């Protein structure tokens, strides 16, 4: 091993665009200073450094692309690193490590129908898979997208969702837990949308990402529809610190979420007491 190599050294990347998605969440577009593509797969995460502040893991929100090398992160302002990111101006630099972790097995989904269930910020990593499918629309069957948020103010990617809703090859259903005066759409937790969709359990795979409390209920609904466990995929949030399976923070029973996850097939975690 070269003595000057360490997996802990981030690579520089530059902020090229920034767009506020709601009061707390902003979409950031970066490009690596090396000019190389990030070469991530849908569902993977990277470690982002703001020197002097710290390092934190974020799911990549953009799909892998071949036409340009930029990648996107959508970040909620909540801690020291995320607040520093929000303060960055165009042209500012960050450090990145990764991509790390498992990803959605896109090849397996080819020819399949697909159901997305995104709760809150879970839409951010879901988006990477969804937009990959939209870019290769012919390769996949029916696509159904369920999106839930706590309230209308917390909705993200509203413009893009509106656009996708207009397509006739994607069925989009949205709900909020708590409506405001202007909200005219569905009201209720995300599982209430399941009665409104029609899917073929024989040919449908599922990707679901959301707050920790959501998974159990979504998986119950999927099972009720008759979707087998081995076609349900989840992405789990844990405290990935090193990203290399060493530091222990992201352990789910004996698994390291940073190596074995964050994307899991439900059958691989169904028996683990700490997973869902």
């Amino acid at each position, binding site marked *: *091993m070269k*003595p*000057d*190599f*360490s*997996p*802990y*050294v*981030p690579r*520089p990347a530059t902020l090229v665009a920034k767009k506020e998605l709601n009061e707390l969440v902003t979409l950031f577009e970066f490009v690596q200073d090396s000019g190389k593509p990030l070469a991530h797969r849908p569902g993977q995460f990277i470690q982002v*450094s703001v*020197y*002097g*502040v*710290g*390092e*934190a893991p974020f799911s990549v929100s953009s799909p892998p692309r071949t036409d340009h090398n930029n990648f996107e992160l959508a970040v*909620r302002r*909540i*801690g020291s690193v*995320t607040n520093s990111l929000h303060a960055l101006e165009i042209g500012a*630099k*960050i*450090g990145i490590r990764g991509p790390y972790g498992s990803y959605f097995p896109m090849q397996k989904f080819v020819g399949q129908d697909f159901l997305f269930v995104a709760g809150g910020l879970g839409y951010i990593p879901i988006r990477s898979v969804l937009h990959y499918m939209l870019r290769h629309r012919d390769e996949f069957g029916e696509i159904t997208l369920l999106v839930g948020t706590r309230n209308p103010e917390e909705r993200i990617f509203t413009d893009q969702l509106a656009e996708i809703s207009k397509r006739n090859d994607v069925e989009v259903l949205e709900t909020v837990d708590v409506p405001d005066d202007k909200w005219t759409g569905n009201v209720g937790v995300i599982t209430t949308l399941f009665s409104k969709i029609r899917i073929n359990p024989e040919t449908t795979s599922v990707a679901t990402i959301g*707050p*920790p409390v959501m998974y159990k209920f979504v998986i119950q609904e999927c099972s009720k529809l008759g979707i087998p466990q081995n076609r349900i995929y989840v992405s789990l*949030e*844990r*405290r990935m*610190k*090193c990203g*290399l*399976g*060493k*530091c*222990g*923070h992201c*352990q*789910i*029973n*004996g698994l390291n979420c940073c*190596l074995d996850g964050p994307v899991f097939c439900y059958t691989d975690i169904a028996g683990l*007491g*700490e997973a869902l």
Partner: protein
Amino acid sequence: MIAYTIYLPQIKGLLKHWANELNVYTPTRVDDGFYEFRPWNEQIEIAWDYDLCYTTLKRFILPPCEDIISFDMKRYTARPVIEAPKQLLFGVHPYDIKAINQLDQLMEMDSPDVNYQARRDNTLIFGLEPVHIADTAFWSSMDASSVDFGYDLYWTRISPGAFFVQVGSARGEEMLKADGHVEKSSVAQKEAARRVHLKVLARAGKQTLKYDWNKTPEMVNKFFNNQVFWRERSKTCLSCGSCVLVCPTCYCFEIQEEADDLLHKGRRYRQWDGCMLKGFAEIAGGHNFRDTAWERYRHRYMRKGKYIYDKLGELGCIGCGRCVKACTARIANPMKVYNEIWEAMKNET
């Protein structure tokens, strides 16, 4: 097997040679019944018959705090920081060698840890056959009373003035010959060393698991959902992290950083962390995946009893008994907990 016999008067000369080349640490009595690995010098008396060194040897290879990168905040560049002083740990008991052997494998797998490996490469380990056993130790039942590898030399005191020294590596043999001629061991001396080992084994048999350690992984896994048991055992847990701090096989760490006062340059370092501490599994927004003391308590026994076994084929506990001493609530004894689980399961089947 190559082995030499070293006589007590030869040792000081050897130590002087070694100390010229590298940092030498030896077991030293620091208080009544309290031993530590301390830097060796000519004034120090080596505690050949120590029972247990309180702090673990992982601190020499995975220091409590170590820099991993340095960064430049203006140019936004970073470079690795890999420090690896040359060092010799002289007098390491077999259970502690086993612990280091485990860390070697865990740090190698998946993505090799360059900082650990650099330090390990520059560390020589001279094992020492124990003669006294700590009252909290139970290593003889954890498959840790002898090791086949992981040492450069292995010393057994076969008489008040002589050591039988088994060679574990070419570098170890070279070190042994650093101060002139050394005598090859005889068959009788080898036999004497074997008897010393048997004698300590006989005495180590007092505190043990009541069953074959091999059964532990399946057993604790079946007990995972027994909340009553885990809640009851952890009732007085202070979540202080003492048990994981003194554990020779624990290696969890946290990564933090610090910038200079001009915000030009900084260092990112890692420092020991512990799964028994409350915030260990907490994520942004405050959700904690092991929010209660009993969940963290259970995780420790699962990790030692099953998760490490799944990776390495051996238990993550080597039975040194340091945690038993460190725990102020007196609840961190793996032998006791595993025995209790065994007792409970024994009646089930």
